[in-house]
Structures are given as C-alpha cells and as structure tokens.
C-alpha cells in the first residue's frame, strides 16, 4: 500500500501527516507536489492541513484549481480513497468532492484546542474499527470549521449514513457546549455518497504519538490500515 500526501505551498501539516504514516505506522509515503499531476500510483491520498495558498480569499478556494487536484479529483471519481483533514476538508468541499461548506467559526476566532469527537458510523474506511460509544480526544485548529449545508443535503447525509463524526463532551454526549465552532448538528466529519472521500476538521495526526501523551487519533489510522491491508 502506498500513501500520498499532497503538498500545497502553504500546507503546514503535511510533514505531521507523513511523520505519523511513515514513522509511527511504518507505511510507505510519498509527497505529491501541487504543480505535478502524477499520483505516483498511490492507493490512498491525503490532503493535509495548513493554509494551502494563504487562504486570504476563502480557505481551499484556490487549492482546488492546482494541477495535482485535477488528478486527485479524477482519482476520487474513480473510487480512489481520499482523506482531507482541516484545510484538506475545506479543499474537498470547495472541489465539491464532499457535500457542505465550512464557514467561519461562530466565535469569529481561530480555535486551537483538544476537543472530543465520537464516530457516528462504522460504515466507512476511516471509522470501521472505532467504538461508537467512546469519545476520542482529538485537537482542532482552524478559523473556518463551522460545517454547514442545506436541509435537503443534511437529510441526505443522515439517510445515507454519511456523517462520520460529531463533536461531543468527554463523556460522549453531543451537546451545544461541546460544539466549539458552531457546526450544524455538531458535525465534525463527513464522507461522500460513494464512501471513498472523507473530510474532517479535527487533526487525528496530532493525537497519534505516544510521546505527546494522546493516541486517540490512532483509532482512525488503524481503521484505515485494517481495511486497506485486508
């Protein structure tokens, strides 16, 4: 299995994702430069966090026009696995690869802190082995992470089991207080109808190293590894 991490000029979580996939999980990882179009035969592609092109206009709005994205979109449309974290999720919504949009946090401030999320379904590559009753402590770090979509799309997401994560408190209760950025129905992550493209605002790669004393994010990576290698 080969993992590809796309590097936009302003990506800054690319190295973190590579560190976790390569050093902690022992996987083969290549960087995919935004000006290239060759996906180098990767089986799983990650759009990492950061500020892809400075994001002065709207997060992810420019990145989706990168040469590499033409290939990535094509890859996803053919069923290839694609995960977007934080800015990566924003790029996925801009590219129309997952439904919805990510608005400014209701506080109008950048928020960086540990939050708790709970997987809503095991019916996805990235959540298949996560205990649905357990709150995972995973950090967020964003100014625009307030998930929004219209009522019809929301119904579709619910009917088709496309909501992957909800923000919750440490005991797993999905409450207004635990919804740090104002996301619709506490939604922290979704997938597309084809269940091969995944977007989430929290950073699982920031909760995957024992040396940082929090490995809750490993549950997501282990889900990926379990199915990718089965």
């Amino acid at each position: 299995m080969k993992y590809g991490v796309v590097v936009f000029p302003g990506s800054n979580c690319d190295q973190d994702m590579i560190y976790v996939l390569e050093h902690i999980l022992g996987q083969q990882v290549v960087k995919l430069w935004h000006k290239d179009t060759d996906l180098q035969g990767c089986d799983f592609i990650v759009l990492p966090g950061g500020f892809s092109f400075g994001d002065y206009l709207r997060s992810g709005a420019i990145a989706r026009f990168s040469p590499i994205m033409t290939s990535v979109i094509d890859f996803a449309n053919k069923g290839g696995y694609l995960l977007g974290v934080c800015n990566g999720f924003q790029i996925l919504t801009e590219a129309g690869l997952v439904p919805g949009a990510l608005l400014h946090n209701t506080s109008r401030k950048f928020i960086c802190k540990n939050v708790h999320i709970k997987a809503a379904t095991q019916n996805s590559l990235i959540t298949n082995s996560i205990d649905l009753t357990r709150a995972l402590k995973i950090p967020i770090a964003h100014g625009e992470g307030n998930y929004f979509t219209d009522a019809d799309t929301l119904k579709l997401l619910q009917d088709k089991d496309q909501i992957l994560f909800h923000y919750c408190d440490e005991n797993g209760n999905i409450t207004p207080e635990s919804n740090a950025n104002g996301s619709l129905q506490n939604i922290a992550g979704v997938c597309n109808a084809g269940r091969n493209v995944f977007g989430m605002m929290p950073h699982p790669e920031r909760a995957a190293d024992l040396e940082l004393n929090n490995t809750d994010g490993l549950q997501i990576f282990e889900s990926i590894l379990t199915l990718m290698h089965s």
Partner: protein
Amino acid sequence: MEQTQLTTLETAKELGLLPEEYQKINEILGRVPNFTELSIFSVMWSEHCSYKNSIVWLKTLPKDGPRMLAKAGEENAGLVDIGDGIACCFKIESHNHPSALEPYQGAATGVGGINRDIFTMGARPIAQLNSLRFGDLALDRTKWLIKGVVKGIGDYGNAFGIPTVGGEVFFDECYNINPLVNAMSAGIVNVGETVSATSYGVGNPVYIVGSATGKDGIHGAAFASKDITEDSVNDLPAVQVGDPFQEKLLLEATLEVIKTGAVVGMQDMGAAGIICSNSEMSAKGEHGMVIYLDKVPTRQENMKPYEILLSESQERMLIVVTKGREKEVEAVFDKWDLNCAIIGEVTDTKRLHYYMNNELVADVPADDLVLGGGAPVYHRAYKEPAYFQENKKFNIDQVAEPTDLVAVSEFLIKHPNIASKRWVIGQYDSMVGVANMSTNQPADAAIVNIKGTDKAIALTVDCNARYVHADPEIGCAIAVAEAARNITCAGAEPVAITNCLNFGNPYIPEVYWQFVSAIKGMSSACTKFETPVTGGNVSFYNQSSDEGPVFPTPTIGMLGILDTKASMMTLDFKNVGDAIYLIGESKNDIACSEYLYSYHKIKSSPAPFFDLDKEYDTHQLIKQLIESHAIVSAHDVADGGLFITLMESAMSRNLGFEIESEEDIRKDAFLFGEAQGRIVVSVPEAKQAEFIEIAATSAIEYTLLGTVTAGDILIDEQSFGHVSKYKSSFETSLEKTIESN
C-alpha cells in the same frame, strides 16, 4: 534630484540625528552627505540598529559557555549546541512601537521578523513564544490592543505553521499607551549546516528574494527610536504589513537553497531594510557591494532611492551567491514562485555604492554604518530615582490582614494577571508540528520534542516587570531565576538565554539607571545559573509624553535541554492522598505581590525576598528529586503566591488540597506573598521515605504542607470551597472581561 542634494544640520535633526553625529558623518565621508546618504546613516545609527546607548552595558553580560556555537552579536540569533549534532537557534525581539499604533500588523510582522532571524541562519523554526504587556483592561484602548495583537500573532503564526508553545500576558496601567509585544522563536539545525550573515568574493552576485519592496516601514527603525506622542499616528507608514503565506514560501525556499551549497551568506531584511543587510553583511565579510536600486522589484512606481534602501517591507532576504551557480539558486525560487532578482555584486572596496538609473546616488563605507564599526557608542548618565528609597520604607505591619481570606482567594483567581490566558492561547496553533509535549502534560516550561532523538528542548519567557520596577537589579535577577526555575521544574537543564530589554527613554537618567541596574542583575544571575546571553534586542523609548515610561521590562527567554524525554516533569497533582511539600522557605513577605498591589492597592514596596545562592541550590535539589523519580509534580511559586500555585496544580485534574499554614508567618503572607525560591511538589506515599532522604541532604528548607484531596480546598481546617468554583473563575474571567463592552 532630492536624493543627491546636499544636506544641512536641520535635515539631520529631522531624521533624528544629533549635531555631533552629523558632524561625524561629514568627517567619515570627507564631504557633506546627500539626502540618501544621510537617511542611510540615520537608520543605521538609530538605537534600533546600532545599540549606541546600550552596547557599553550589553558587553558586560556573560556570553561564553561550552555550548555556544555563535555568541551574542555574531549572527542574527544565538546558536547553542544541544548534542547529537543538533544546534538550537533562538532569539526574542520586540515590536512594541508598531503594535501601539496598529496592533494587528504590528504584532504579525513581529512574529514574521523573529522567525526570519532564525531561518536566515539555516535553522527550521520549531516553536514560538511571546511576551505581551498591556494597560488597564478596563480601558477600551487596551481591549482594542489585545484583540488586535493576539489576532495578529495568531493569523501570522498559524498560517506560517510553527506552533506557539508558550508565553506570558501581563496587565498594568503603565502600559496604557505603550503595550509591549515581544516575540520569540526557536529553531533547530544540524551543526555545521548553518549560514552566516556575511558577504565576500569579488564578483559574486547579490540577490534580493521574496516579496517586492514597497513604501511600508520606511524609517521604521528610526520610528522605534523615539517616544510615542500624539503625532505618532502620522508615522503609520512606518508600520509594516505582513504576509504569512509569503513567509512560509520564503522559509521553504531558503532552507532548500542552502542545501544547494551555492550560498555565501544570507540575511533577512528586518529593521532598516536593504541598507542594513548590505552594510552588516559587507562589514562582516570585509568587502563592498555595488547595488543597482532600479533592479529591486518594487510594489509601487517611482520609488526614491532612500525609500528602496530603507523600506522595511516584510518577507525578503538578501543572498550572496557563488558566481556561476545562479541557475541552481533561481530554480529553487522559481519552484516556490518567489521573486529572485540580482541587484548587484560583491566588490573589494569595503564601500557600498548605490546606483539608480545609472546615477550614483550614495557612496558610503560599510563598516562605519554598523555596530562595532563606526556607529557611535555613548555612555549615558544615570541616576537613582527617588522612588527607589521610598519603596524600601514599606513595612508589612502597616498593612492590616484581611479577616476574610477566602474573599482574597476569589479576588486573585479572577485577576487578569493570574487568571487563565486561555482566551489568548486558544487563538494560537500550539500543536502544529506534532512536537509540543506540553499540550497533554502541563509543565512550568514548554517542552518541544526533538523527533528522532531522545532529547527535547524546554522554553520559557519570564519577567515580572513590577519587581524590576521596584528594584531593577534584584528584579531582573529574579526574572532570570524564575526562567531557570521553570525550566528546572519541567525536568530540563537551563543552558542559555535571549533577552528583550524594554525600557523608556535612555536620555532620562532615572530610566537609564533602571537599564544599568537591570543589566547588573541579569549578569549576576546568568553567571550563577551558567546561562550565557546569546543575544536579543533593546527597545528604548517605550514611554509617552503624558504617562511616562513603562515599567523596565527585561524579558528573559530561556532555553533548556532535556537529555532524556522521560525526565520531563509536570505541574499537576496526580492522586488523592499524595503529600504536598514546599521546597524553599515561607517568608513574612508580601512586597510587590499582586495581592499587595491589586487588593490593597499599595504600589510602593521593594522587590520580594530573593537569595540568588539559595535559589540555585533549590533548583539543584529539584533536579535531584526529579532524576530520582521521588516527586510526581513540581510547580514554582510565582504571581499570586503559594495559594495560586497550589490551585494551578490542583485544577488540572479537578483535585483539591488540604494544608496547614505556618504559625509564625502571617497567613496572608503565607498564602499570597511572592517571596522567591519556592517550589511546590507532590509525593506519593510509596516515595515519601526516598523524598525525605534526598531532601534532608540539602541545606534547603522543605515543609510538609498537607495532602491532595478529591476537590475540597481546606486551609487550617477552614473550608475555602471546592476546586470547581475556582476553576470556573480561573478559566472564564479574562474572556468575560475582554469580550465585555
């Protein structure tokens, strides 16, 4: 043309030069300088670039140490060997004046500037800290400033992608007009792979790379070298505008271009722009340069030579490249879509020749412009201020002990200087880079993982400026000691400091006395702790016409090393029933405490108790206790006193404490006094014997205070309430105050 017109003394004064300085410039050139040349001297001889009013005293600071790879003043930042072939490059710098006028851009560009100082040496920044001081939080101006500064630091640092791992925020009305914004960055680089800020090799091309040059920040260095007045708003063009995306590109491209091996020398464009980089690199390399200013990429049409030379437009680097290797260098900048233009070449004249459209517009000797060369050096007069003796008259017996100490506790936990800075910290990305080991393990210093090794570094910024004001020599020694205490409590070894010296107008003898005394205190403490000064920054003129100088604020940024990550120590109590000990001695001392200052509103008192030798011995004992795993938490007693320290250790895991005070010490002094040299540790039952065995071998006092409880706070069997109430006040009070209208 204006720029080649000859100047007069009047013009020199308008540019901030003294008559004797103008005279000296005439002598150096052997003729009357033209306007461009005079502008060059005015910025290079400003305090900001030349340290002319501070260097005499800065030279007295200890600079040597076995780990020093680059000493203070040698490069853009200090370089410390941390072992395993890795060096840490770190520095702190002020951006006070711009932040007073335009808090968002002022603070943002401060972050940009300090990070460029790190990566211009070839080091990749891995952690940022900041030290912020604002005025009375009840004022709308203060709220405007803190919101702007914090957003500026956040937006720049977050996009740049280096975590902000620590810092301090302090409020006092002396900062109403002049806030202090000090930004620190630390990076790592393999030993032997650094780049120097030098220039040599006749015929080597000189490149400017990064952003185009605009009219922002012209005379910024000179602006930072005068008092803030009503007219300062007219200096707005002296404030630069930041673009963190460009900085991120510049970082990656710079580190990549160094790998080509084609770089002779490099320096970022900071204060005083192109002229500063040209002159400092040329002086260091003992060469000259010829520069064609019309080749500099500009943002605006028709920029004048002095504007191009002095512009402080951000996100630019000056690079001298080995002739013949231009293509390799240009390919890197092309990859990152950055400007990369040859603007001239190295000469053997030791002079800087500037041409604009084939006309020679300035001809100046490089060495005469710079610190250590021809820049002026002044011995300023100083005089002890009257308030200093007044402070010593303070007597604790004149202060009535309040009957309700629970009310004092509740007052202090909410005080902006003590309450959680969560509102501030939450706006900074503290976790990018997956190396911040303090996120899930709170400690007295920020601990940053050096991945791929068994090491980590510890970083802290400290300065209680109220102590420094009360007694500059002792207060500054305390700032160093507190930094060392924080590093030690986190399980690391203090190794070096960087300093940001924020003071008022150096031409006022009482202000200069504060500066001189602070330097003396820093010297003695840095010598004792074996933490040499690796560099930093002096910021004078932090004073306004109507409110006078700010507290003397010599911010200390300290670096520590953890040779094994497993020796990291945290500050939080772990288990109900663990014994709580105080290492160090309780004193009948409330001098200079937040309690005395804010609760009793008594503003004249000396610095709190401090004994440098005892302080050092206390740290050695703590080190020994950590190494032997006899304690499970360590937290120093600082602002707010013992009570606040205990609360901070307790709140993290929603635990409480039950303690007894000491009979011969006033209970308010016992709980809220800020006598130095004290650390609270917790010891599990199974480790008690070992703890006592080690502690008993030291000459340092230790006292059993009590035990950790499940959440109740009991002092001398009196209930002080439950931890949850304090925690709620602690976490939300600052936010409520700032967000209220």
